[in-house]
């Protein structure tokens, strides 16, 4: 069982997540893609944890999960707020910070 299997899996998922973030217009979908990226990272962590027979990989994975939870909470709150103001959560239209 090659370590690379897991790392390749993580990389692919990561890239799909990135694609998701870059192309999706819907705020929630973008959050989902971010979740996907975070999971890719977790796989890497656990893989290396197992590879090195060291628990820190798993512990960090847990922390990442917790943070991800927090992040989704806040992200959704913001998305809902935008939705309430603009009736749509299309990311492209929220460009007030245009230079």
């Amino acid at each position, binding site marked *: 069982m090659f370590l690379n299997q897991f790392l390749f899996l993580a990389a692919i998922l990561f890239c799909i997540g*990135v694609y998701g*973030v*870059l192309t999706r217009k819907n705020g929630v979908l973008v959050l989902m893609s971010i979740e996907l990226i975070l999971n890719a990272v977790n796989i890497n962590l656990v893989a290396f944890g197992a590879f090195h027979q060291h628990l820190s990989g798993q512990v960090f994975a847990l922390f990442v999960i917790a943070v991800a939870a927090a992040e989704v909470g806040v992200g959704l709150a913001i998305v809902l707020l935008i939705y309430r103001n603009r009736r749509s959560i299309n*990311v*492209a239209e*929220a*460009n*007030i*910070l*245009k*230079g």
Partner: protein
Amino acid sequence: MFLLAAEEAAAHSWLYDNVWLIPALPAAAFVLILFFGKRLPNKGAEIGIAAIVTAFILAVLTTFTWIGDIADSGAHSEEAHSLVVDGGEAIPVDLTAEEGEVRGAPIINEVEWFGIGTDANRATLGTEANGHGEPAGGEGDTHADSDGHAEKSAFSISIGTWVDGQSVMMLFVVTFISLLVHIYSTDYVNGDRRYTHYFAFLSLFTASMLFMVLSSSTLQLIVGWELVGVCSFALIGHWWEDQANSDAALKAFLTNRVGDIGLLIGMTILYFAADQSFSIKTINEMAVAGDISKGTLQIAALCLMAAVMSKSGQFILHTWLPDAMAGPTPVSALIHAATMVVAGVYMIGRLYPVFFVGFGIAGGSINVMAFIGGLTCVGGGLLAFVQRDIKKVLAYSTVSQLGYMVLALGMGAYTAGMFHLFTHAFFKACLFLGAGSVSHACHHSFDMKADMGGLRKYMPTTFATFMIGTAALAGIPPLAGFWSKDEILVGAGVWPGTEGNGTYTIPFIFGMITAAMTAAYMTRAVWLTFFGDYRGHEEPHESGPRITVPLVILASMAVVVGFFNMPSGFVKALRLPEGWAHKFEDWVEPAGVATFVSKEANKFTHAKPSLSLAVVATALAVGAGFLVWNYYKRLYAMDPKATEYTNGMASRIPPLAAGHRVLENKYYLDHLYTGVIAGGTKGPLARAANWTNQNILDGLVNAVGSTSVVAGRFIYRFIDQGVVDGTVNASGSTASRLGQLLRGMQSGQVRQYATLMFGAATVLVAVFIFAV
């Protein structure tokens, strides 16, 4: 005399050592009056008088001790030479090696005041113990100040007291007259706004005069000289409310300062000539011993002569003295008759060898000093004829008498000069105080022609004392004036049988003319004030006791003093004991003078008194007096109220009228000084200096300023704006254009930012992998 005989040795040295107390007392009085005067019952006068009385007593004691010393040290020995310093050991002066106590040698106590560049404490000179090494002991520690140090870059000033015949005489005169003036002033200046201030400065004046009299070093002399000048400034300008008085004070001080240039330079020359020493003793010794070249001595003497001319009102610089009458009369009496004005004569006496050798008095026929003296005698006397103000008459008479003293000293008649100074102080002070009492009676006016006349009926005492003073001044025997004036004429050495130091014919003639003139103008003054009818408006009254008592004392002194220096001829004629002859000469003539002239070239001899000269001189004086007397007698007969002939000789004969006008305008000297010189420097010259300062120098600076401004503006406009700024702006614009470009990138699309970020991330990773 009996007191002294008892513990003569002890008192003897204590008095000499603590002679500095005499100036110190009035000085302390000055400080006390200044601070506490206002609060005392009669506002400070009592402190002044107390101090001057104690000083006077001390002075009298010192005088008697000095006379006692002279009497003990044996007969008047002509040839004694060595100078002895108190403290026992006699230091043979390199004049002659003769041992033994010399009669009348000066007693000098000195203490080191401060040193400049003293090499005593200079580490490099190692432990060479010289006189300066050990710090000078307390007061009264006597040590020779010149320590025989060869190369003397060290310049240590010592301050001390010099007691000898001349200074003792001056001590007595100054304290005596100052005491009388103090008493006189309590009445005269009574009620004045600045009563305390007046007494403070009177004490300060007495203190500084005594300080100068006792000074043992030329520097001390200068200090005293200038302090006296300041006090006269303050006292002349006592009523400085109106401009005239402060002008007079200013004039007096500035003329004195003009003379002081000579003093400063003269002293500097002597200082360096005497191998960097200020001590008068050293200077005198070196002058006599010939260590200082005749040329330097002559220049120094000339410079010091300038100082004498200004301070003692000699001819050219005398204009301040009559104007100084603006001060209160007691001040005039003390300062401008008895004490300050004789400071110059005193200095000549103190530094006599310098003048004696410098002007070559021995054997000469005329020298600068004699000439100036003579000129002043005649010049001053003539001016006295045309004065309306009684004090001005007396002022010009003082100028004339001072000229007399300088004349005497110029002819080598040292004792005669000093004796005349001594006697003149008394009768001139008496005359001035008399004039003060007269003016006191006529409501402070001094104008003889307008407010006086016939006062003998109203003011008997003042009249009597004034007459005695006038007689003494005119030189009528047996009063003091006759003896001293006669001595001077004898000293001229022109009259057959009086071999003086040289045949001074012209000065002798000046002397004789002055003798006559003095009698003449004094009779005029006396007539206008006391005889004829009273021209004033209210009833004059005799002054109070505090004025008349000093007058009486002074008048009696004028009578008695003459007999101090009776020539031996008269003594034999009146069959008095031999010891009485030439008392004054024994007392006052310092040992130095007698021994000044060991070298043949400057032989100093005493002239022989002659009876015939005395008779002729007196006749001249009485004749002149009588002439003026009946001139006015006839005028009185014509019209009692008139004070001069309407068609008198002067008005009829043009040259006489011209002469009269010249005299009126005081030889146009005042016009020359105030108008031309002072006005010139103050006015145009100063304005010219200021103009140059403002226009040329400031102009230059401003020009530099403005040109630099113009240059600056030029540089700014072309180089700075054009070149430098151009580049700066260019760089600025490129920056802003670039900015515009980049602005596009910031589209506000979060998505675009994410894409860019990830793109950059991939590029970065690629770089890391491949490049690194």
